[in-house]
């Protein structure tokens, strides 16, 4: 066994390892919420819900949201280092802005979906979000192509999807879950009636969570493709 000696290989690999572990914590719990918990909550008596939600959800959500922070932080540092070796550091800002703009649109769509109209149908919302995400990738990839490699282009897409998912967690899912947990606890402890908006909070949090589950599939594709699948040609036409 020989430990690689240069510091850059070490730093990059330890960032990657942390990124794996935190990413599994985050997305693994996301799968738990979507594949197991959503159905479980439908089958539960209200009285049992009052016991289980305040006991289970805060802990699972703690690992979930801090896993997301650690995943994104390690990923961003790693990506900045890669861009630096390709001498295109400044493109980090463009990628971030493009995906943040895309997310702002998505967040607006989620609000519209809860208010009613055609987006109320989850399938239509899904198609609109898919079109939007492809469009964002279409903007980002040509910008990266100028000077970027397959690796940095693939991460501009996969990492961008991850960034959107991160904002869904911290700007939508977690703030709404806090309100839901407090309301369920209040109902269980003092018998206070559920706030009239509670179903809307639950619906919007659910939509963001379900969106993240779907986005995780292409996200992992592009993350893996960065090192293992040369899908973006760097030939100049």
């Amino acid at each position: 066994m020989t430990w690689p000696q240069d510091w850059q290989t070490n730093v990059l690999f330890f960032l990657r390892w942390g990124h794996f572990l935190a990413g599994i914590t985050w997305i693994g719990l996301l799968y738990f919420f979507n594949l197991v918990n959503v159905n479980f909550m439908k089958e539960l008596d209200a009285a049992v819900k009052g016991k289980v939600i305040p006991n289970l959800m805060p802990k699972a959500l703690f690992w979930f949201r801090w896993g997301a922070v650690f995943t994104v932080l390690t990923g961003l540092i790693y990506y900045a280092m890669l861009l630096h070796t390709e001498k295109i550091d400044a493109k980090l800002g463009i990628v971030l802005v493009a995906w943040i703009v895309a997310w702002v649109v998505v967040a607006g769509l989620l609000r519209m979906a809860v208010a009613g109209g055609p987006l109320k149908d989850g399938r239509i919302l899904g198609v609109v979000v898919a079109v939007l995400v492809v469009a964002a990738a279409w903007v980002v990839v040509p910008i990266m192509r100028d000077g970027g490699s397959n690796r940095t282009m693939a991460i501009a897409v996969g990492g961008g999807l991850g960034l959107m998912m991160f904002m869904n967690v911290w700007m939508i899912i977690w703030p709404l879950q806090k309100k839901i947990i407090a309301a369920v606890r209040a109902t269980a402890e003092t018998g206070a009636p559920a706030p009239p908006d509670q179903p809307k909070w639950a619906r919007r949090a659910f939509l963001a969570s379900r969106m993240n589950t779907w986005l995780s599939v292409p996200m992992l594709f592009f993350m893996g493709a960065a090192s293992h699948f040369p899908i973006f040609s760097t030939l100049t036409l």
Partner: protein
Amino acid sequence: MGGRKAALLFEGICLTWPGDWQTSALFLLRWAHLISGVAWLGMLLAFLLMVEATLPRVNEGARRQVEAHLLSRLLFWMRWSALATVFAGIADYVLLLSAEGIAPRIFVFLAAWLFGWAVVASLLWLSASGKALADGRWLGAVVVLFLAVLGWSGEIYMRRGGSHKTISLSLGGGLALLMFANTWFFLTPDRAESRLGLLAARLNACLTPVVLFLMGSASHFPLFR
């Protein structure tokens, strides 16, 4: 006009699917391996949070509902995503081994780690039934020592003819195989909440960082040779 526009869009994004079937097969297997692996380990973490932090704090009625509706579903996804992960992983590993001309070693690999699991399972059983190593710390120390010896022998065996990549995967994949057997034998609905099930789940959680280190190092950290 329409054709010209399409060409421009295509030039902009410049997407090319790699042509040879082996690159595609390896990568699609890897993708499935990633997704199902994330699901497996996420379910493991959710399981531990549930049985260690939530179930002790709820009453008997709530506990029964959690077991019937949540735990059984969680364990279902954990078992089957573990199977998908291992299946895709072994297929990928066989492709890699045959590229290095040492495909038959897959059988040695499987036999060695299933033997390793049998030893670890016996240790877990001894500890859970209170016959020996009842203290979890002693159990952990013995398991770590045993796995280190097994891994060391595996590394010496693979060094002859294997690349850094296949050596690293023989260790990470071997530990993952052991976790898989733990999942299928001990994390079943009737055993998961027993002492044996809890020990198996905790062992899997402790092995996870090691497995991921070795999995990642296969392509990104030349540790062996």
